[in-house]
């Protein structure tokens, strides 16, 4: 069916012929007879990585195939979403090894983006926890790959934005938990210097990230709240929580029912939001035990929060800079602050070592920002790209909707090697997205 498709940023939107499958033979027949197709999960990547004139919705390909509850190994079809998995695994004492800030993504999407979480500095990206997976490649066969079997395909598929083929099955390791709660500590940092120092001081925590108020100048430039956490032990729970340590109390969700008019978002409202957010932490240091949901997925509680950016949509800009290049961070934040284009969400995180071919994370600082689409935004982001390049950083492909091809080729050191593997498994560009065409990764 011909549909208007856009991902989470609502930008860009295109017309696409979408097909869905429940069985592998149907899926393979379709792949065999079509070209320039791209697999699409729940549309939670922000940009154009899963957009193409021919798309395959993987959402019906969502069967959980096996769950080894003794060793914590889960085997699933690629279209199942993280929220469905959490409902199954958490009550049995297991957790996702790595999770991004939303649980409404598919496992296939998690692999194709090689997602990272608040624990990247400890546990790496999602790919580190995969035992094996199946990919339908351009040669129309299903290949099982892992770190040892078809390793080139494996590494080009992790973070490879669906360009090596269609991920159909993933087997991966889970993390053991004793409760469904997180012991959280929030720390107020007066400025950027302080938050960076705190990150270092608290790096032994499994989970960490910071919210930055990026409209501040002078002394309070980069003021922020660092949030760190650990899975809570049963003893740390309240008596009431202890009665069912692995089940969360039911909660209703808020829905943003329509796109807000764009004048709602301006420097003033963003400032007010950030002020409230910062000052709601009335003490310098706060400790509490909270359910895992608001800790990992604070925004999922507001379904369709993306509509808050109005009809024109928004672009999320996430970059990473090497650890020793924190001047770059200052330079970029300063530029944003000067322009007064701060976003509601500015999330800062420190990554650990990079462990793969084309994945986004590398050791350093990563900052994620939202910018509503408006006049002058694209040239402004091009200017930010210049700074990112100058400091040896790069941008996250899952959030990208506009980077110029030279930015990609200059900033990903393994781009050529990746392109060669894509060429090997997807020689006729059977799999292609608007993004892959823009970045010259497919012909």
């Amino acid at each position, binding site marked *: *069916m011909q549909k208007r498709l856009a991902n989470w940023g609502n930008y860009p939107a295109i017309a696409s012929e979408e*097909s*869905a*499958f*429940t*069985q592998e*033979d149907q899926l393979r027949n379709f792949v065999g007879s079509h070209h320039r197709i791209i697999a699409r999960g729940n549309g939670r990547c922000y940009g154009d990585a899963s957009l193409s004139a021919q798309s395959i919705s993987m959402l*019906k390909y*969502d*069967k*959980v*195939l*096996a*769950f080894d509850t003794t060793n914590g190994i889960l085997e699933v*079809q690629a279209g199942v979403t993280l929220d*469905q998995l959490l409902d*199954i695994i958490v009550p049995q004492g297991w957790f996702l090894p790595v999770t991004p800030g939303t649980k409404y993504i598919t496992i296939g999407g998690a692999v194709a983006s090689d997602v990272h979480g608040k624990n990247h500095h400890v546990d790496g990206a999602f790919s580190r926890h995969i035992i094996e997976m199946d990919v339908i490649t351009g040669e129309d066969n299903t290949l099982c790959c892992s770190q040892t079997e078809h390793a080139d395909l494996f590494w080009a598929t992790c973070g490879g934005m669906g360009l090596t083929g269609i991920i159909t099955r993933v087997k991966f390791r889970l993390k053991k938990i004793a409760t469904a709660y997180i012991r959280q500590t929030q720390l107020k940092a007066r400025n950027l210097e302080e938050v960076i120092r705190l990150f270092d001081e608290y790096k032994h925590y499994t989970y960490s990230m910071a919210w930055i108020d990026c409209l501040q100048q002078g002394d309070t430039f980069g003021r922020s709240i660092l949030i760190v956490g650990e899975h809570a032990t049963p003893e740390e729970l309240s008596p009431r929580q202890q009665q069912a340590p692995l089940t969360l109390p039911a909660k209703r969700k808020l829905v943003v029912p329509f796109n807000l008019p764009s004048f709602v978002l301006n420097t003033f409202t963003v400032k007010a939001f950030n002020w409230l957010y910062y000052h709601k932490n009335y003490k310098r240091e706060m400790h509490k035990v909270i359910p895992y949901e608001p800790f990992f997925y604070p925004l999922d509680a507001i379904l369709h929060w993306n509509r808050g950016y109005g009809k024109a949509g928004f672009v999320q800009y996430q970059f990473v800079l090497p650890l020793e290049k924190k001047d770059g961070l200052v330079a970029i934040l300063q530029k944003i602050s000067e322009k007064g284009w701060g976003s509601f969400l500015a999330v800062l995180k420190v990554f650990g070592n990079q462990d793969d071919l084309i994945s986004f994370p590398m050791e350093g600082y990563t900052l994620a920002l939202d910018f509503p689409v408006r006049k002058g935004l694209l040239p402004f982001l091009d200017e930010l790209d210049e700074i990112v390049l100058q400091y040896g950083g790069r941008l996250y492909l899952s959030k990208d909707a506009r980077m110029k091809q030279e930015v990609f080729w200059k900033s990903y050191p393994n781009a050529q090697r990746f392109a060669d593997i894509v060429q090997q498994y997807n020689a006729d560009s059977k799999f292609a997205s608007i993004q892959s065409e823009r970045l010259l990764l497919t012909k």
Partner: protein
Amino acid sequence: MPTLLLLGAGSDMAIAIARKFAAEKYNIQLAARNAAAISPLQQDLQVRYGITATTHAFDALASDSHAAFFDALSVKPDLTICVFGYLGDQEQAQNSWQEAHTIIHTNYTGAVSILNVVANHYAAQQKGSIVGISSVAGERGRQSNYIYGSAKAGFTAYLSGLRNRLFRSGVHVMSVQPGFVNTRMTQHLTLPPLLTAQPEAVATAVYKGVQRKKNVLYVKWHWKYIMLIIKLIPEGIFKKLKL
């Protein structure tokens, strides 16, 4: 734990029904032509809901095998839902008997053949429930799909007769008229959103209908009235319409 026999377990609607009943702690017997193709669903139901699911080879068109198929079930189901159906291609069915034959025998003959076996078993034991997924297309023949519609009309009449016959034995028979459903069967069609149900909504309605022992179930209430209006249009006018 009650057991559900799902006839035609490969479709989107069947998957949703299987999940709904598994979530309500039914064991599920999945019957489909290609039993291997539904084994991911079998695994999924067991892992997600902690119930027992089994797969069984079943071909709606092979009527001769239906009695043996039911005999071979080691656990006899408490509830049987007949989901299978074949929309086919109206134009092709007008021109080639092969296509018309498949439409008629899948939607009508095959369903009658297997449900006769199930009904006799339930009548003998004086309990059980049968659900048939029919179609609003069976309520009045329209040029765009009257071969499919006529087979579903036959099926609807069969179910109402069966309900009448089994009432005294305490067996419940429910016919479901889902209207448009967003499934693989209809993915090439443009459907009006207000009148189109999601498979999950059909599954929930079927589950509630079974609980309340309903006779005829329209998944979206509008359909009852739409079909009433369509049925009331005089034939002289109806035949001139392009429906």
